[in-house]
């Protein structure tokens, strides 16, 4: 027990409060940092000494820095993010598809009706060239609209495929960053006490990763995190990361999600994804868009077949038989639908008459029959007319887009509730930090006073012996 031990206590106290102030300052500066968990000093009394019969304290020391985090909540958020990101892919792309199909934009039904109305006009005036011009113009509009819808859907499909590739690269980047952080956390710590900032960063990366692909993860005894896909393929194992690859493609040239093992063998895991953006992208690309493209194809094919069937049975203005109205196709009907070359080159090749008399066409029966197709139930085994077909396509797209929006709203709101809970535990409050700062400031001032007092005591002692 000596006066110098007072100085020592004061020094330790200054050190501890300085540390605390620094931690507070760090909290304040990270008030808006995503994924940051607020930190607090853990102070403990320095071991005591026994002097005579008294056991005296020996001041304070910083035992460590605590990170306010709820691991259970973090895990839930990470898992919820998988669902949120998958749903957000659906919402974004269903909205796009909705905009493509929506009558408001595509004007498909309107163009179809106009096309058939032009045949009505021709049936009233079956020898007219100007009515034939009307038929040709409305038909080429219709072909354009159908091709546009099909190509726009196809473009979205291509875009999704591109997105899949970049997402896979992202997954690889994140996996390797996590592996890297694992290493740094392990190297910079002994056992479970790691670098808080690195752990925050790693947690944030896990959340990013889980938004892309559904994962399971757990922490090993060395504080390193192991990450696996749902199919049990390792993504991160300690300091090593495994890659996903987009190299496997299907017959359309679209990529699958493949896992690359240590030897570089690729294993297709597309069907086991269960969640996340990757799954959303594959579902969209190979599911709904394909179905819609097939429907548009069916529309085009039926239109070509029905109109051509009638058109070829009649006689053109120059008395020719068997002229197709639409270009005859054997596949990719919607992609390539167009007016036939015969019609493009000569308006008189448009057929209105069903009979021939002395080499001249008689009547407008074919025009009337083609005009009547609009009311014929020519789809789904004679249950739907062409307008009903288009309208049910709109209905379907609307229902799907609506469902996707609702699901995303739900995911967002549950996610944001959890996020609030997380913020409530880990977020920084300036008010709190300022209060702490004042607290530490006073503690610092008081500890400084200890120096004064020790100093005076020393002076007195020295004066006494002089």
């Amino acid at each position, binding site marked *: 027990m000596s006066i110098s031990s007072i100085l020592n206590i004061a020094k330790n106290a200054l050190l501890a409060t300085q540390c605390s102030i620094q931690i507070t300052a760090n909290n304040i500066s990270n008030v808006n940092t995503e994924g940051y968990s607020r930190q607090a000093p853990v102070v403990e009394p320095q071991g005591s000494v026994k002097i005579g019969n008294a056991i005296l304290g020996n001041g304070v020391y910083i035992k460590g820095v605590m990170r306010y985090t709820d691991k259970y909540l973090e895990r839930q958020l990470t898992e919820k993010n998988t669902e949120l990101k998958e749903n957000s892919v659906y919402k974004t792309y269903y909205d796009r598809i909705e905009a493509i199909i929506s009558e408001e934009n595509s004007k498909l039904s309107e163009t*179809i*009706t106009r096309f058939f109305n032009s045949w*009505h006009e021709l049936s009233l005036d*079956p020898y007219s060239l100007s009515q034939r011009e009307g038929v040709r113009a409305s038909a080429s509009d219709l072909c354009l609209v159908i091709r546009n819808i099909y190509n726009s859907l196809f473009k979205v499909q291509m875009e999704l495929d591109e997105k899949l590739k970049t997402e896979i690269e992202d997954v690889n980047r994140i996996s390797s960053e996590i592996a890297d952080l694992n290493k740094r956390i392990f190297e910079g710590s002994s056992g479970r006490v790691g670098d808080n900032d690195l752990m925050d960063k790693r947690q944030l990366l896990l959340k990013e990763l889980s938004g892309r692909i559904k994962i399971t993860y757990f922490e090993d005894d060395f504080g390193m995190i192991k990450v696996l896909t749902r199919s049990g393929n390792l993504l991160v194992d300690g300091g090593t990361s495994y890659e996903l690859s987009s190299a496997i493609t299907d017959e359309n040239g679209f990529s699958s999600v493949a896992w690359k093992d240590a030897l570089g063998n690729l294993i297709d895991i597309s069907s086991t994804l269960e969640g996340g953006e990757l799954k959303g992208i594959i579902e969209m690309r190979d599911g709904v868009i394909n179905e819609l493209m097939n429907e548009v194809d069916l529309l085009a094919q039926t239109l070509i077949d029905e109109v051509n069937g009638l058109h070829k049975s009649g006689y053109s203005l120059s008395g020719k038989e068997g002229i197709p109205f639409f270009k005859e196709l054997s596949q990719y009907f919607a992609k390539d639908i167009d007016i036939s070359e015969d019609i493009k080159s000569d308006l008189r090749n448009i057929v209105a008459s069903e009979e021939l008399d002395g080499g001249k066409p008689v009547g407008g029966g074919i025009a009337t029959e083609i005009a009547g197709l*609009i009311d014929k139930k020519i789809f789904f085994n004679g249950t739907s007319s062409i307008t009903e077909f288009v309208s049910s396509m*709109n209905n379907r797209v609307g229902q799907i887009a609506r469902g996707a929006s609702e699901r995303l709203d739900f995911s967002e709101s549950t996610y944001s509730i959890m996020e609030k809970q997380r913020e409530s535990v880990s977020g920084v409050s300036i008010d709190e930090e300022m209060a702490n700062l004042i607290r530490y400031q006073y503690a610092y001032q008081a500890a400084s006073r200890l120096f004064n007092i020790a100093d005076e005591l020393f002076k007195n002692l020295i004066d006494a012996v002089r």
Partner: protein
Amino acid sequence: MRISDRLRYEIFEKSLIDLKSELQRTQEMISSGKSILRPKDDPVNFSISIQFDSEIEKYEQYVRNTERLIMLGGYYDSSINKIHELLGRAKEIAITQASDTMNSDTRRASSEEIKGIIEQLVSIGNTEVQGLYIFGGKKLDTKPFDLNDDYSVTFNGTEDMISVYTDSGVKEDLGISGYRIFLKGTDIFSVLKGLKEALEENDVEGIRDSLDGLNQALSMTETNLSYVGTYVAKLERTKEILELRKSEIQKIQSEFRDADLAKIVSDFNALTLTYQTMLYAMARIQELNILNYLK
């Protein structure tokens, strides 16, 4: 609950985004006048409204088709009236010239008038409306009646007609064939030719015989006149029904698709107010900062 500073802003941010998108939707409704803007707003009604739009377009076309037929009906009506008048004149001539007081000179002179009547009838039979021969049956582009040197007349048209749609699944003849007007039952041209020849040959018996034919021709023409009347009346009725149905659909369409402007504008005002309140609250909460109270 512990509220961190980030949370405090995020709550505002999220609510502001939601409000803004609501505001945007209301603005769109106001500017478009529609309450269903895209399929997902109301998929069922959106798709029904596509069908309705198409129905309306179709009805408009059927109305145009019907109007065209009605317009043609007018031509037929005046043509048949003219035919009746000419046949009446021929009958007058036949009655007068059948009398014993007349002689070969007057009869020869009258035969010239009958020739004129035949020529006029042929010209009626070759009436063109907008470039189409309306008495030609299906052969709208061929002159239906040829007057030969001996005043016999050849018919080049067809007996049946082109049919066009006047409603979904309902077809109507595009006019009336010259065959029905001039030839069916009684061949007007051969009756007149017979009369002309009897007059030329001063054949009183022949003149009297042709009177029978003329009477039949007149009564056939009267039947045709009432046929045209019924034809036009039926079309007028069809047109009325089409227009009625069209306006019914427009009414229903507007009920579920058009925006209730009064409601939307008041919604818009409410939203604007909420938005303003929120901005105000946000500003006030920002003022609540410990730094304002620390010196």
